[in-house]
């Protein structure tokens, strides 16, 4: 039944109908009617962030840890432009968001009115889709369509720009469940002939490897369960991208660790030497492939993806299957069980022998110290002490992010939130806030760098206001460590602007916000300090002073192949000449 109401009321009504619990936002002139409609109702709860970028990342954290759509609400002009980084981040990492932006009234659009910006123009290339609503009659459809588009197929951010006069206008509101878009209908089920062929290829493989990504997580927990089943049934090794961590349990013996630029020796070598690569919901990103023309030169490649444009984009594959990971995995498991043929056991055993040989190299290893906290050690202790405590991890961007990916072991999907595609410093704290809201009883930790954390530190205030006991675990090396590492690689160790002078006193900063501050620089006291953090029922900033010189290994330098990794012994204390590792062509790459 159609109900009559204003545009602003329709927005709140639609959020209720979509089951939205939280809206992350910040008010302003062009959204005041919507704020008025939010006032005095309790079903949709508004979370007041301190910067619109924070609203976006918080919505991302919420979405990634729940599988639901994250929602943000910002005003026109600067409100919208402040949200751009988060929208781009969500586009790159395929995170479902609906972002409602206020706009100047329709008759002023194009007149350079106060706080006007061309929001749909600016966000066209950083959203999956966007709308400018010019008629109240369109608003109900657009609102629900936005949720559909954001969450179906390859998820992504959708912007709805609503001029102020449309918020005041009244009209008929209606909501049909299960709306379909007239053109946008992603294909979920994989082509069964192709899945049959994939199974055939798998039974003939001698050196197979599963390479999985964020698509498995996005497909839902069912996909992770089916993946585990298929991996167990086949006995094949499995690796994953940064985005895909947790889909397969890191404690399992078939797990090779993350692959890619800072991935494990065994994962990258298995990718290079395999004869069959089964890629599920990953996109052959440049951090994964290294030098493209030397990428896994002897393998046949199967690629399962919901986005047809991902197939054959960076790497030509032998068999592309368009479909949702859970659907395709379900068929694969069924067909594998029904199939009589099995891979050559002897060949598979030999393959594993080779892998174990690489594994024995212990490529994530490092030389521990009694004097200084090694950042890897700090992550390992954090993992050991939070294991089994229902923990969710977010990160900022830099070396600490890679160490977290290498040393924190994820057993379940949706537990790991990191900015992969865009690499956004400042992501972790607001993301942690979104996660904590969704999981109020869980332990939510932002593994941070001292530089990154300052990019959205204002969100501490949000954490305090909503009593969200997020833990910020800063690996403080005083450097933009990842930048410093690259300056060693490419620029003769000339540390141009990568040292941060005048850092705040993080313990006092915690205090100033009303949180709890902890500092630790002594390896012997680390465990006690971490336990203190875990047991504090309030937000904590943990300033963990770590070895300032440590670099992140292993590493595939830009422009190199998977089998040309730099390993730790070479680096670090021994003083590797990192400066000679990358050639002229590699320097051009990022």
């Amino acid at each position, binding site marked *: 039944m159609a109900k009559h109401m204003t545009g602003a009321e329709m927005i709140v009504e639609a959020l209720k109908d979509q089951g939205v619990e939280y809206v992350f936002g910040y008010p302003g002139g062009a959204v005041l009617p919507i704020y008025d409609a939010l006032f005095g109702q309790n079903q949709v709860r508004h979370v007041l962030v301190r910067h619109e970028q924070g609203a976006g990342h918080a919505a991302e954290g919420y979405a990634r840890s729940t599988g639901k759509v994250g929602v943000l609400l910002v005003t026109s002009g600067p409100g919208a432009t402040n949200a751009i980084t988060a929208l781009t981040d969500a586009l790159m990492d395929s995170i479902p968001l609906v972002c409602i932006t206020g706009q100047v009234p329709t008759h002023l659009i194009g007149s350079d009115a106060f706080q006007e910006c061309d929001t*749909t*123009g600016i966000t*066209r*290339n950083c959203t*999956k*889709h*966007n709308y*400018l609503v*010019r008629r109240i009659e369109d608003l109900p459809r657009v609102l629900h369509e936005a949720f559909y*588009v954001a969450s179906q197929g390859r998820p992504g951010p959708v912007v709805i720009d609503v001029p102020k006069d449309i918020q005041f206008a009244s009209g008929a509101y209606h909501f049909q469940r299960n709306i379909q*878009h*007239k*053109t*946008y209908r992603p294909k979920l089920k994989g082509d069964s002939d192709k899945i049959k062929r994939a199974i055939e290829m798998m039974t003939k493989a001698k050196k197979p490897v599963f390479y999985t990504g964020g698509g498995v997580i996005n497909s839902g927990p069912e996909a992770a369960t089916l993946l585990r089943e298929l991996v167990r049934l086949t006995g094949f090794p499995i690796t994953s991208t940064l985005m895909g961590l947790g889909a397969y349990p890191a404690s399992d013996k078939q797990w090779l660790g993350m692959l890619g630029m800072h991935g494990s020796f065994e994962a990258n070598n298995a990718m290079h030497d395999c004869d069959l690569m089964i890629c599920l919901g990953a996109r052959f990103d440049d951090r994964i492939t290294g030098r*493209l*023309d*030397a990428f896994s*030169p*002897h393998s046949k490649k199967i690629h399962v993806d919901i*986005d*047809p*444009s991902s*197939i*054959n*984009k*960076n*790497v*030509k594959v032998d068999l592309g299957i368009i479909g949702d990971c859970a659907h395709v995995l379900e068929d694969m498991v069924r067909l594998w069980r029904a199939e009589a043929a099995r891979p050559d056991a002897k060949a598979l055993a030999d393959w594993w022998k080779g892998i174990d040989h690489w594994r024995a190299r212990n490529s994530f290893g490092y030389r521990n110290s009694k004097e200084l906290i090694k950042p890897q050690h700090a992550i390992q202790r954090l993992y050991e002490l939070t294991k089994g405590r229902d923990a969710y991890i977010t990160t900022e961007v830099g070396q600490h992010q890679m160490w977290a990916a290498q040393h924190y072991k994820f057993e379940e999907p949706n537990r790991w939130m990191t900015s992969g595609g865009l690499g956004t410093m400042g992501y972790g704290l607001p993301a942690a806030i979104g996660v904590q809201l969704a999981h109020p009883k869980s332990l939510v930790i932002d593994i941070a760098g001292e530089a990154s954390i300052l990019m959205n530190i204002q969100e501490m205030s949000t954490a305090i206001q909503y009593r969200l006991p997020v833990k910020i675990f800063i690996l403080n090396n005083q450097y933009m460590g990842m930048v410093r590492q690259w300056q060693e690689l490419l620029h003769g160790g000339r540390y141009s602007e990568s040292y941060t002078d005048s850092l705040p006193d993080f313990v006092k900063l915690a205090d100033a916000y009303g949180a709890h501050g902890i500092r630790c620089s002594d390896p012997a006291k680390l465990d006690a300090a971490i336990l203190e953090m875990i047991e504090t029922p309030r937000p904590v900033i943990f300033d963990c002073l770590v070895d300032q010189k440590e670099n992140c290994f292993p590493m595939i330098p830009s422009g190199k*192949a998977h089998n040309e990794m730099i390993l730790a012994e070479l680096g670090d204390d021994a003083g590797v000449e990192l400066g000679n590792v990358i050639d002229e062509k590699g320097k051009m790459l990022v």
Partner: protein
Amino acid sequence: MSKAYPPSPYSSPLGKHNAESHTLSVLVDNEPGVLARVVGLFSARSFNIESLTVAEVAHETHLSRITIATSGTPEVIEQVRHQLERLVPVHSVTDLTLAARAIERELAMVKVRGKGDARVEALQLAEAFRAKVIDATTESFIFEITGAPRKIDDFVDLMRPVGLVEVSRTGIAAISRGPEPI
């Protein structure tokens, strides 16, 4: 290192040597911003646009057809098609060059200036190309010519020495042969 696979569409900016021209027919919802979306995709992903035309083709259903002539390696063309298909208001993308049964037409207006023999020559060439005179002064003609883009190129080239002033072209409209729709 042996090259097992051709390089990706994005890794071979110099892949021009095996570049092909393709005409894509894209059926879209005629909604605000749809053209910007399509054009923005081409610039954001460094695809070429050689010609682009757009007009509403079904008034009641608000459908427009965008005809795009693009060029690139076969891998790039495949990417262009898939990326276009990802756009939410896009109904369908057809590669008319692959269908190999496409008819392409373009209309051009060609202004030529000259006196005496040049005028006679211009008129003779126009006749040979079945171009119409649509405007004339004592020292100029404007010709209207319709045809495949190549034919128009040829006509313009021939007019150059005669006294070509300027050309205005519509870009390509294309459709598939036979009874079936695109």
